[in-house]
């Protein structure tokens, strides 16, 4: 074709002429016209098939009846259908049975990720690392109320509220200083007899037990009191931190410098299934019992 284009060919003109330039009637190339027509035909088809006319509150439906939100809901339903058999099992089985099945436990832990992120991570951290002195670590093996699945479930469902009296008014400062030294020496195994005597006299044994090992190791009567012999410090392990805890206690109303230790109630906010998978996730963080 290009071989012929060399020679000027006589072309019809429209009769318009400006300064010797004729307006020719060459039609556009065929492919161009086909594209043009195909384009507007496509426009009409698209207009009819899909929502295209804005009405007052929404738009018309279109012949296909397609909307974005419908497509979204279908996709969600599809996803739910994939999860359904696992969800059924989660509902029917108890937490320890789920934990025994590696595949199901894996599903439970993944499913718990979002719930944990929304409800727990703000205080306890994304990996259960807690916040030093403020919120307890979930990944360690120190449990104030017990680290088995049932107790964890109970803690989430009903919440927890620590309680330790303030001693600043009832006990003289020298004794408080002795107690602080005693508590710091306990984990190192070099507590003095004087320390033990002060511990007994002040009545710390009432909650922390005769052996100072607190709730987890001494049964339900002592639930919630910390084990003073281990190396985990609920409110910080410096001498000042310990002094403050003894002086002002925990959760004491009207005491300005008291420690705060409140775990909210989640039983009303979360479903039993959500709490079940949360318990499994927390139990698997590293210190579950």
């Amino acid at each position, binding site marked *: 074709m*290009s071989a012929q284009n060399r020679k000027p060919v006589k072309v019809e003109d429209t009769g318009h002429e400006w300064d010797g330039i004729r307006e020719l009637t060459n039609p556009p190339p065929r492919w161009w016209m086909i594209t043009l027509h195909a384009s507007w035909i496509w426009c009409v088809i698209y207009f009819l098939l899909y929502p295209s006319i804005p009405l007052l509150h929404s738009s018309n439906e279109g012949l296909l009846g397609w909307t974005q939100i419908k497509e979204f809901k279908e996709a969600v339903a599809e996803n739910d259908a994939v999860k359904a058999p696992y969800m059924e099992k989660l509902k029917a089985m108890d937490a320890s049975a789920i934990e025994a099945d590696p595949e199901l436990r*894996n599903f439970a832990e993944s499913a718990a990720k979002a719930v944990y992120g929304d409800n727990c991570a703000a205080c306890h*951290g994304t*990996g259960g690392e807690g916040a030093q002195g403020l919120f307890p670590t979930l990944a*360690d*093996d120190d449990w104030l109320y017990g680290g088995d699945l049932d107790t964890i479930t109970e803690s989430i469902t009903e919440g927890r509220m620590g309680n330790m009296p303030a001693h600043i008014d009832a006990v003289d400062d020298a004794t408080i200083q002795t107690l602080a030294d005693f508590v710091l020496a306990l984990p190192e195994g070099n507590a003095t007899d004087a320390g033990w005597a002060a511990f007994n006299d002040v009545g710390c044994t009432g909650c922390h037990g005769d052996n100072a090992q607190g709730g987890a190791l001494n049964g339900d009567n002592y639930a919630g009191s910390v084990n003073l012999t281990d190396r985990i410090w609920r409110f910080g392990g410096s001498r000042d931190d310990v002094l403050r805890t003894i002086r002002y206690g925990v959760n004491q109303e009207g005491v300005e410098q008291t420690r705060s230790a409140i775990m909210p109630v989640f039983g009303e906010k979360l479903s039993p299934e959500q709490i079940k998978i949360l318990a499994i996730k927390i139990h698997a963080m590293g210190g579950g019992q």
Partner: protein
Amino acid sequence: MGDIKTKASYDELYSDSQHYHVNTGAETIHAKRIPGFFRNIKWFTMSLWSLFFLSPYLQWNHHQAILFDIPARKFYLFGATIWPQDVWMLSLVLILLAMTLFGVTAVAGRVFCGYFCFQTVWTDVFTWIEDKVEGNAMQRRKLDRAAWSVEKLQKKVIKHSAWLLIAVLTGVTFTAYFTEASQLWYDVFHLSAPLIAWIVIGMFIAGTYVFAGFMREQVCFWLCPYARIQSVMIDKDTIIPTYDLERGEPRGKVSGASVNATTGDCIDCKMCVGVCPTGVDIREGLSEGCITCGMCIDACDSIMVKVNKPIGLIRYASQKQMEGIVLPPLWKRPRVLVYSLIFLLALSGIVYGLSHISPVELTVVHERQPLFTRMSDGSIQNKYTIKAVNKMEQDLPMTLRIVVDDPAKVMLVEHDGKVVLKAEKLVPFAVFLRGAHDGTRLENQPVTFVLEGLGEYEGLVIRYDSVFVSPK
């Protein structure tokens, strides 16, 4: 400067381009089909494509021998199962194919185009059908010009139906590499195949029908990049169909029995042009349209025999051979050597890859938040998530242990070291390492996780290096 341009000097500008014919498909090329040596070779190489149509039905160990299961991200090649992790081999396969193409082009030009390319092979089958239904090249041209009649309609309908049948077969066969073949046929006949299957089949039907039926040599001319880069891949030692200019020119028609002594051997019968599937005149030299199929050689040889002249006026020969220089052996041609070397490197990479595909892919993810946890006895605990993919079709029992500098300082806790990896699954699980507390400060230290096969899988050892993190 002062030259006055004459009309003659302008004509000179165009004299060369008079010969320059650009084929843009304005006219359908109806090539003559004649038997001959190269035609037989072409039939043979074309028949290799039957493997493409048959392979999807081969079975291997309860599954399709060749199956590219994209939804499950697994490629089955006979005994080997290739997971996405092993796809690096694909790049080597592509290098291998490219080098094969380059090497072959350096030695013998575009023989791939002439004998094996799906475009030319399918086109050849389509024109063969055309030849059978509508008659030879001359009859076909006549039929194209003729007004519509019942007979013409009949022939056209038969031809296009046959074309479409091949197109459908091609489309379904291609799709059958990606899904279970017999199920696909069942679904196609019951019109219940998945949408994506219909789309792929539809595209291949349209592609086959349009490219092989209508566009034909236009694809080679204007769509295929290979034709355009052939000039950098061939050299003066590459053998390509060449017209012996010295022997053939000047061309002259034979008259009666006497042969004019002043003319060359070419009798200007244009047979070589008539049989060319891309409409090239080989006598004008190497052309971008030449797919080196050798049909013109078959045609010219048959004529030379008829006029009692030696065959080979058109023959596979290199430029240097035409100048009387002997072709050097392959191992003395740097291009061929370099291509072969890269080819062998890629090939050995693929062989290594296929023979070393590990049945287990192990990743150990160290928990980042927290990096470590202090336990009640003061020891430091690290959490690791073990992600071990078992690519095999059976459950795999293994033992897990760790290798550390000082086993007394860092140890595995609450784990009996027994692991069963579920078949074709990845079920992550957590393990904990604890640094013994003996009053000394622990430094971060390297840890290697080792999975070892049990029972019949003894000898299978997978390692992963990680680190144990302690507070500074």
